[in-house]
């Protein structure tokens, strides 16, 4: 016969106020297999826990139910108490009679029987629980960071500085990400590269960090603590060891293509270094454009001119496999596509540019060497219109969400523009100004007061070119009159999108995406840097639009979470996982198909569960036509009994 103990908590009056706890305890005492049933004012208090521990010992209880608040709050408390008393912690179940009963009902006469049903249901369940021990797996104490932007770099540094090996992979030829393209940063206006490059250098020189640029994640398998990752290393066709950076090759390269780093405002050769401070500082020969490699014509000029014979056309892509315990995903953002913003003439008129292009135009190292010259005719623009929310906050046409940083960088743009062109005028079309953040509001005010930036509240209705000017028609909704500006340059604060390819990567990593395609966090409030997959963490704009300090902060957060895992010899995993009833399994594989974690696999005609991969969601058990796969301590048999209990039977 079972020996179950039931402990009903008053929670002061929180429960006892609307539930007759004594009655519930008495009812439970009559349940089959219930050895002891009692109530107490605060079960979670020390005396309360002692009462439970004592009862377990005295009455030799083999399982307990605590009827109290939500299991999210005190399940651990009471499971530990049970453990201290020598009971297996999985022999303790919680009946939530507060959040799901006493707090939402007023009529004691009705709340009490409901509380009784809830407790009864927990009793039936716990009486069929198995004693389980947490599963333990060894941890590979290495980290993978995907994405070499500021967030990736920060996360890598934090983990490396704690003493763990880190592999930092970046798909482009250099780390640095978008931050390396920026001129100055708000609200302090310090030069972006001046604060970024030290970190880039530190990362590249760090003994614990292995940099893999021009590389991509091909395939991920395994589970928290033990990931196996196949990494594709794309060939640069340049032996960086031999290369002495003499730059002769770019001079002879016949081919010019738009320079990604300058967002097409300048050109580069097929063999190139992305930007002066690029790390690693080595050449990349892009095989898409190189006439030799794309076999349009036999060219070979760069090889001929290279004295140290660093050019190697025969380099092949390599796939290497590495083991990691954790993965930090920092794949960053891209700007909303040109094509999508046709209404603003973006992509149509040379003098309609996006924020990043403008950053380059402002940058001392940029195409215009720090002078603001408009693309079409290299003249200095005297009237510049900035348009915020270009693609953001527009659920009908574009992105529903706010890209968060545009208000600030637009203010910065306008301000910096004035610093370059003193007699120029900056207009900003905006919906709202969102300047939450340290020194942000002051920064915006400064733009208005010191630099005479004109803020126009309203949307732009039409943009078109007319004799060398970009005509901007809009409405100032505050004064309620329409506005026409003959602008020389229009700068669009384009919405932030998850970086291209992030979705395929998410598939490989089995990460969830939110409705906008950003990586989904495990919990919007309480687990913002963890992904839904154990052992994978999120950093930077890949998770949601954010500015540099936020990205860096989240990166450090992700690193800290990752370190929690890396710092352990072994990991413990919940043992409430799926289990196969072999002689019912026919090996149809339907459970294999639905498992989100590839935790079930077919092995000679029957399925097997990889317990460390299984998260215990139970979708397999509901899919199986023959109840041949069940989740431990949540078997269909238990649910069947709980259903009966909930119906008072």
């Amino acid at each position, binding site marked *: 016969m079972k020996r179950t103990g039931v402990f009903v908590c008053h929670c002061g009056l929180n429960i006892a106020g609307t539930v007759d706890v004594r009655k519930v305890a008495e009812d439970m005492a009559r349940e089959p297999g219930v050895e002891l049933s009692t109530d107490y004012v605060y079960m979670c208090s020390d005396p309360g826990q002692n009462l439970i521990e004592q009862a377990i010992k005295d009455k030799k209880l083999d399982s307990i139910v605590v009827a109290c608040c*939500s*299991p*999210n709050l005190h399940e651990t408390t009471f499971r530990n108490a049970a453990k201290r008393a020598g009971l297996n912690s999985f022999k303790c179940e919680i009946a*939530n009679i*507060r*959040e*799901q*009963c006493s*707090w*939402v*009902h*007023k*009529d004691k006469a*009705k*709340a009490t029987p*409901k509380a009784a*049903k*809830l407790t009864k*249901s927990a009793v039936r369940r716990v009486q069929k629980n198995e004693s389980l021990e947490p599963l333990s797996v060894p941890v590979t104490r290495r980290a993978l960071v995907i994405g070499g932007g500021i967030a990736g770099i920060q996360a890598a540094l934090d983990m490396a500085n704690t003493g763990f090996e880190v592999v930092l992979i970046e798909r482009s030829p250099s780390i640095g990400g978008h931050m390396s393209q920026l001129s100055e940063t708000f609200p302090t206006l310090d030069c972006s590269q001046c604060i970024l490059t030290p970190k880039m250098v530190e990362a590249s020189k760090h003994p614990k960090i292995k940099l893999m640029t021009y590389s991509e994640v091909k395939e991920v398998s395994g589970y928290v603590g033990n990931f196996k990752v196949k990494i594709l290393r794309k060939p640069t066709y340049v032996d960086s060891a031999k290369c002495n950076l003499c730059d002769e090759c770019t001079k002879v390269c016949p081919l010019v293509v738009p320079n990604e780093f300058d967002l097409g405002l300048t050109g580069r050769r097929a063999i190139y270094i992305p930007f002066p401070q690029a790390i690693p500082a080595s050449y990349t020969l892009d095989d898409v454009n190189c006439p030799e490699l794309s076999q349009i014509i036999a060219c070979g000029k760069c090889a001929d001119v290279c004295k140290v014979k660093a050019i190697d056309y025969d380099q092949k892509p390599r796939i290497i496999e590495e083991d990691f315990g954790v993965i930090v995903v920092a794949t960053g953002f891209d700007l909303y596509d040109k094509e999508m913003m046709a209404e603003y003439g973006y992509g149509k008129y040379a003098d309609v540019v996006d924020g990043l292009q403008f950053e380059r135009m402002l940058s001392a190292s940029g195409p215009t060497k720090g002078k603001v010259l408009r693309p079409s005719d290299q003249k200095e623009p005297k009237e510049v219109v900035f348009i915020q929310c270009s693609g953001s906050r527009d659920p009908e046409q574009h992105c529903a969400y706010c890209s968060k940083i545009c208000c600030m960088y637009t203010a910065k743009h306008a301000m910096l523009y004035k610093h370059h062109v003193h007699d120029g005028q900056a207009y900003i079309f905006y919906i709202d100004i969102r300047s939450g953040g340290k020194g942000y509001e002051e920064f915006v005010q400064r733009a208005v007061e010191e630099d005479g930036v004109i803020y126009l509240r309203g949307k732009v209705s039409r943009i078109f070119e007319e004799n060398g000017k970009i005509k901007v028609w809009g409405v100032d909704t505050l004064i309620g009159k329409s506005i026409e500006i003959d602008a020389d340059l229009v700068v669009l604060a384009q919405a932030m999108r998850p970086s291209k390819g992030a979705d395929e990567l998410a598939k490989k990593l*089995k990460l*969830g*995406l*939110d*409705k906008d395609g950003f990586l*989904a966090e*495990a*919990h*919007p409030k309480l687990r913002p840097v963890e992904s*839904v997959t154990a052992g994978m963490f999120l950093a930077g704009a890949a998770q949601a639009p954010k500015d540099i300090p936020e990205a860096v902060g989240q990166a450090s957060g992700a690193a800290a979470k990752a370190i929690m895992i890396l710092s352990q010899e072994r990991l413990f995993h919940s043992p409430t996982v799926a289990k196969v009833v072999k002689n019912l399994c026919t090996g149809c594989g339907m459970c294999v198909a*639905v498992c*989100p974690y590839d935790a079930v696999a077919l092995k000679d005609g029957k399925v097997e569960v990889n317990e460390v991969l299984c*998260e*215990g*969601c*139970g*979708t397999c*058990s*509901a*899919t199986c036509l023959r109840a041949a796969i069940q*989740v431990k301590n*949540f078997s*269909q048999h238990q*649910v*069947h009994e*709980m*259903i*009966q209990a*909930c*119906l*008072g*039977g």
Partner: protein
Amino acid sequence: MTEEFEPTIVAFLCKWCSSAGSDLAGVSRMEYPPNVTPIQVMCSGSVSPLYVFSAFNRGADGVLVSGCHPGDCHYIKGNYYARRKLALVKKLLEYVGLEPERFQMSWVSAAEGQKYTRVIKDFVNALKPLGPQTKLRRNS
């Protein structure tokens, strides 16, 4: 006057969204009728059609299955499988003559205490006029 009929409802709530949502309703002291006895499941995807049939067989007047909104499933896609399976269950039950109101599904997120409350209120109100469910229940 005669006692108003009080339907008995079993609700399968997924742990991560709907059950958390109902906790939030509790924390916010939102009131709703006590007709529903929830069973917390790990994921709406784990709710077997058998649970639904069994609940009705054992005398439930209504059955609710509630999970995370599409895309929000803690287990990435469990709720999509639930949606498929239970769509079929619902169609089948209606086909053999059960009132459509008696089996319901909802998406309730951890932040939607308000919505959970509304779902329960509406469900109870929808069931009251129907009276006891006798079509699938054991006549013991």
